[in-house]
């Protein structure tokens, strides 16, 4: 089944980013097609957050180019900006405001805002009146993360970028989030990029995955094909679970050789 056709929504060409002498991104090439639901995997500190920030133009790369919606991300038009939803890793932002105040504030910043959806999500995800009027810095980590997700979904974005969006949620919270993602976001053909360590979530919801290793996208493809052993360039490996695949890709080179995978 062919993935969505069309010119890439996100195109990163030869993007490099240095922090001091450390090379976090090293001539990275990555393309995401419209409607793709892609999971980004990588070790802690490998630069997933940096990659997503460079993708959105929040950081200037030291080399290379990033285009979103066929526009250079540095000169993104206002209309395109209104089409992006971002859930950063830090969920305690604007924490001196209450959820209601924070959402009102963002509503004023976006031309298109789905108030009904926001209200529905708040109710379904446990935000009763008391919670809606409690300062965000007094909410628990899970509540803050859920609020962060609601804020990103509120303006019906065409591109949704999530950086470890469910790290503080319990299994029920994660299942609710996944259902929302499936039922609303993916149904509408939104492009979703999310980085997470929770592999079971990725297996359910992502159709493609990409592995970030040594500053590059080491492996990318349909999750089903990769699980069944495809490694691209005609290389095949034994079928394995996603966890084993992760170990395989992220592990050291001697392990790669033992499994018959080109390092």
């Amino acid at each position, binding site marked *: 089944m062919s993935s969505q056709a069309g010119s890439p929504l996100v195109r990163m060409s030869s993007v490099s980013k240095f922090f001091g002498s450390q090379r976090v991104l090293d001539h990275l090439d990555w393309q995401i097609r419209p409607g793709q639901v892609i999971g980004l995997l990588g070790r802690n500190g490998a630069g997933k957050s940096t990659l997503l*920030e460079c993708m*959105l*133009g*929040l*950081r*200037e790369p030291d080399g290379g180019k990033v285009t979103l919606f066929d526009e250079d991300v*540095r*000169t*993104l*038009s*206002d*209309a395109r*900006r*209104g089409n*992006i939803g*971002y859930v*950063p890793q*830090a969920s*305690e*932002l*604007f*924490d*001196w*405001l209450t959820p209601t*105040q924070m959402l*009102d*504030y*963002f*509503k*004023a*910043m*976006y*031309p298109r805002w789905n108030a009904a959806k926001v209200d529905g999500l708040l109710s379904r995800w446990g935000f009763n009146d008391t919670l809606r009027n409690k300062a965000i*810095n007094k909410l628990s980590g899970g509540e803050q993360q859920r609020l962060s997700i609601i804020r990103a979904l509120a303006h019906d974005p065409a591109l949704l970028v999530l950086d470890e969006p469910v790290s503080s949620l319990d299994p029920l919270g994660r299942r609710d989030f996944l259902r929302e993602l499936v039922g609303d976001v993916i149904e509408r053909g939104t492009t979703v990029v999310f980085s997470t360590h929770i592999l079971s979530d990725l297996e359910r919801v992502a159709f493609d995955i990409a592995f970030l290793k040594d500053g590059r996208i080491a492996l990318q493809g349909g999750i089903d094909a990769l699980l069944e052993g495809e490694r691209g360039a005609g290389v095949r490996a034994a079928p394995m679970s996603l966890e084993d695949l992760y170990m395989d890709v992220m592990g050291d080179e001697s392990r790669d050789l033992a499994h018959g995978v080109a390092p």
Partner: protein
Amino acid sequence: MIAARDDAWGDAWDEYGRIWRVAMVRPKRRREIVAAAFIVLAFGGGAVVTALQHRWEWSARLLGAVVLFWLLFSWVFFMGRSLQMNSPANARLMPRQRRRLVQMALGGWLALSLGFTAMFWTWRMFPPVALYALVLGTFAASKRVADAVFRLLVLGALCTAAPLLASFPLPDALAALLASPPAVLAAGAAVLLLGARHIAAIYPDGGDRHADARARMQALLGSGHARHAAAKGKGWLSGAFYLAALKRDCRAPRPGTMLMHALGPQGHWTAWIAGVAGLTALYLATRLAAYAAHRLFGMQFGQGFLVGASTVALASMVLLAAFCNVQLGRQLRSTRGEQALLRLTPLAGAAALFNRRLAAALLKTGLVNWMMASAALLLLALLFHANGKVLVCLAALCCAAGQVAMARLLGDFSRESRPGLLESCIFLVLILAAEVLVAWAMARMGGWRLFWPGFGVLGLAGSVALAVRGWKTMLAAPSSFPAGRIG
């Protein structure tokens, strides 16, 4: 291997040494080394000089001062660390450590108090010195110990310091009574007892209360995140104004004003309502207290005192006008997450437009801050002095302060390291000196009445020039949000 009983002392010193070494681990910082070198050179040099002059007493005192300062800094640092080491779990699982920590804290406090008393060479100084040392140590350690005894101690410290602060002379009889040996003995005993109890109290030994207090203390001692949270808190007075402004802005959103909300309530212009109100209240309260003391107790304050105190108060308000925009810079550095979100909103606009909008909003906030501080200052001066000359002088000082306020308000915020603080200070000092010279020259030629107005006008011109320079830099720079991401 159980050590022999008679080696208990040796064990104790071993344990003290171990705990000390663990507590004092910290990275070498240049500032610390420089300060230490400065103290050693200053006091040590003084000791050498006085020794050469055969003034052995002074020499000994100065050398003693070097040792005492080292002891003071170490003990204060130790207090902070030791409180952290005494976590609820450690207190229950390692009761020996807690005992040693209390002993070391007490020992250090006594050594310091006795040492400084020896410096003054009079027993009368023991109670206040011990008190100040204890208060200093506790503040450095935890910044807010909700202990009744501690509050008493702080009150005591303030009372003893009040005569110095307010510089009004106590009635002679009272002063003699306070300095007599029985009184000193009683005060010393009281301080020792209360201090010992206080030190034992700030090292709790586990349990629910300890755990709760620990959570509160962690928030204050501050992991970076907690410090961030504190920096973004709403002021007690201006919080309501901030929320009202937020509501109004949400109804009629303008890009610049909406962007400023990312900096939190303390970076908003409403923050100054609380600041100015508080300071005005304090100023009025001191004047009221002086008036009441005069009327009720017949205390005489020389006219000189009143004028002096008021001048000091007003001068500090001029400093407030000068540094009114410092918080803006701090907020910019600590709200990077919020800034990232805003950079992605359509209302914020494209990169080129973004900086212009932000610069306009920052300028507006900065000007409001400065104007409010200056207005409050002039209003108070008007109410209490009504002297035209003083008013002109103060107005000129405010204009000069405006330059400090505008100096680092605008600029390239996208870079991590902004142009050096030291360089800015030197630059400002030079500018101010130059303006003083020019105004003086003008006054010499045209009459002394021209000095302050001239200085004021030059200050205004300088403020405008600095603002324009900052504006140009900012507009030519990459997008300011998120701040500090480059370099």
